């Protein structure tokens, strides 16, 4: 009886998560091109904390796209952090080292800690000390 109830509850919870996930992912896939365009023009950029940030004002579509990506990133960081026995923010920061070192292209925006938004020049981005082994 109780077991049956628990099972029903679990099944419902899984269903809700699946539906919610489906909604989020279908919306995110529609927004990703908008986010890519925003990254290209520098209104969205990578941050050293491992998340995307908004630099200035962007459309609602871009903003929600960035949020959707960050939610998924956080889930992925949480997963890996649990596997490695580190904090979520450490895992996120380690990823931030990689995005700043290799993903941000010349002319695109990036931000280190709570510093100002900067535009990547011809040289490599000066990474925080803890990224020493980012290559």
């Amino acid at each position, binding site marked *: 009886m109780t077991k049956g109830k628990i099972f029903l509850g679990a099944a419902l919870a899984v269903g809700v998560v699946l539906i919610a996930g489906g909604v989020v992912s279908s919306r995110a*896939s529609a927004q990703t091109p908008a986010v890519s365009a925003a990254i290209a023009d520098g209104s969205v950029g990578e941050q050293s904390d491992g998340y995307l940030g908004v630099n200035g004002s962007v459309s609602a579509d871009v903003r929600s796209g960035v949020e959707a990506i960050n939610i*998924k990133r956080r889930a992925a960081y949480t997963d*890996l952090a649990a596997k*490695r026995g580190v904090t979520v923010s450490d*895992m996120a920061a*380690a990823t931030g080292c990689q995005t700043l070192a290799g*993903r941000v292209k010349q002319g695109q925006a990036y931000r280190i800690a709570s510093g100002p938004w900067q535009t990547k020049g011809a040289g490599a981005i000066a990474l925080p000390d803890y990224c020493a082994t*980012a290559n």
Partner: protein
Amino acid sequence: MTLSTFFALRRAPLIFGGVAACMLGGCIQVKAPDKPIEINLNVKVQQEVVVRLQQDAKDLIQNNPELFPQ
């Protein structure tokens, strides 16, 4: 005189000789440090954690391109 005191007395000049040599500076003085000896292993462990996480981060980015648009 028991046998053990006999031997103790026979060794006495040897012991005194040793003490005298130390006083003349012929001995290496080993002094216990006042503070406990600390060996810091944290640096290496920290470094290994960072290296490992960097590899995880690389894999994460490669395997989830939709989370890392360019």
